[in-house]
């Protein structure tokens, strides 16, 4: 592949306001330069890797992330403090524990019906489902073939974007039930370490959010 395509791929991803799939990149290039242009998904991947290495070397403040089935430019975490101060985009409230729990079940078991979710959580989940639908983190996709033909729920691309995931299979694998009780605190510990690392920054962010501290 000609090295000019590094720049073209860079321009395409840079100009897209949503994560750009490999297929769209190839389509755009072939449309402009002719359908005989030799460019494969592998070339695109290699090009993105090359670009990211360059950004790293040149100490750029941003890189190309693989997210929601596509590529998108994003700032590096080091600059979270500064950009967090400026922008209001992310000063949205974080999801509640109940919302995360419901989302986890849907993410791992999708497509799944509401009754199934409620059995797993042990609580009525009307409100949570409603909230997640409104936030466009989940959506309805068809019906189950079981009695009553309940609606089936799946996660959306917005879900992937919200959590910075490339595809659903990038989610960490849930552990087998047997393992769970053996070292039940494993993940909690991991989370705590993580929390401590970034606590300071998160606090700054929360401070600049200002008004919504009612959740804990």
């Amino acid at each position, binding site marked *: 592949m000609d090295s000019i395509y590094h720049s073209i791929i860079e321009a395409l991803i840079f100009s897209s306001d949503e994560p750009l799939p490999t297929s769209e990149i190839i389509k755009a290039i072939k449309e402009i330069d002719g359908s005989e242009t030799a460019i494969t998904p592998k070339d695109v991947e290699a090009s993105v890797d090359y670009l990211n290495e360059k950004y790293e070397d040149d100490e750029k403040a941003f890189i190309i992330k693989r997210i929601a089935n596509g590529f998108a430019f994003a700032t590096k*975490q080091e600059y979270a403090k500064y950009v967090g101060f400026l922008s209001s*985009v992310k000063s949205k409230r974080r999801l509640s524990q109940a919302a*995360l729990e419901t989302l986890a079940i849907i993410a791992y078991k999708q497509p799944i019906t509401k009754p199934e979710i409620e059995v*797993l959580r*042990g609580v009525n989940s009307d409100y949570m489902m409603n909230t997640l639908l409104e936030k466009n983190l989940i959506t309805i996709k068809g019906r189950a073939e079981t009695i009553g033909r309940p609606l089936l729920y799946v996660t959306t691309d917005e879900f992937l974007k919200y959590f910075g995931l490339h595809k659903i299979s990038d989610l960490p694998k849930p552990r087998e039930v047997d393992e769970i009780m053996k070292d039940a605190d494993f993940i909690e510990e991991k989370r705590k370490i993580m929390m401590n690392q970034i606590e300071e920054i998160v606090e700054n962010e929360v401070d600049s959010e200002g008004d919504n501290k009612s959740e804990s």
Partner: protein
Amino acid sequence: MYNINLNSFEGPLDLLLFFIKRDELDIYDIPISNITSEFMEYLALLERLDLEVAGDFILMASTLMQIKAKMLLPKEKDEKGEVIDPRMDLVNALLEYKRYKEMSEELSIQEMQERRVKYRGNFIGDEKKDPDELDALLKNISVFDLVKAFKSALEAKPEEHVHNVEMFNVTIEEQMTEVLNKTDFGKEIKFTELIKGMIEKLRIVVTFIALLELIKMGKIGLKESTEFNNFIIYGTQNG
């Protein structure tokens, strides 16, 4: 988090897991009698506060009592002759729930990390140009579309000028020049804008013919407009 923070209990399963963890119980051998009374105390507390107790908690209370009763009866056996533990279903439900609770912790980590990342904020400065090969230009526009747009433009004109038969001098050449002026340097103009203010049908007809002529010469291009029965004309020559 050993303080009881009721806000953090997402339901009866969550509460039971809390008891198990706090008292370091073996989940496969839950002292059902103790845990039932703990659970009932919690419900009593809710009632003492005169609060409506959620149905899910009441349901769990009754499940616990059922298990407790079964534990006192002679053990049932399955087809293989193995003893059925009346707590088995509850244990499985707790483990499965615990599994997703863990995953929600993972999601929470992801959420925190992602919140520290920002995507590109504004796109107004990007240079954009539609592909300029003739094929691409006319891709979604057929002669039929042209005629349709023409027809609708004519129909939209008020009828009152029909009797005003006037002489006026308008030539195809003049209109071609006008169109070229308006699309100079790759500028764009909508068809409806172009014919705006043209009262006489004849002038519109002549302008339309001028357009066809210019397309044939490759001096202008057309592309789809999002509006119904309209299209955008633009110059293909820079100066």
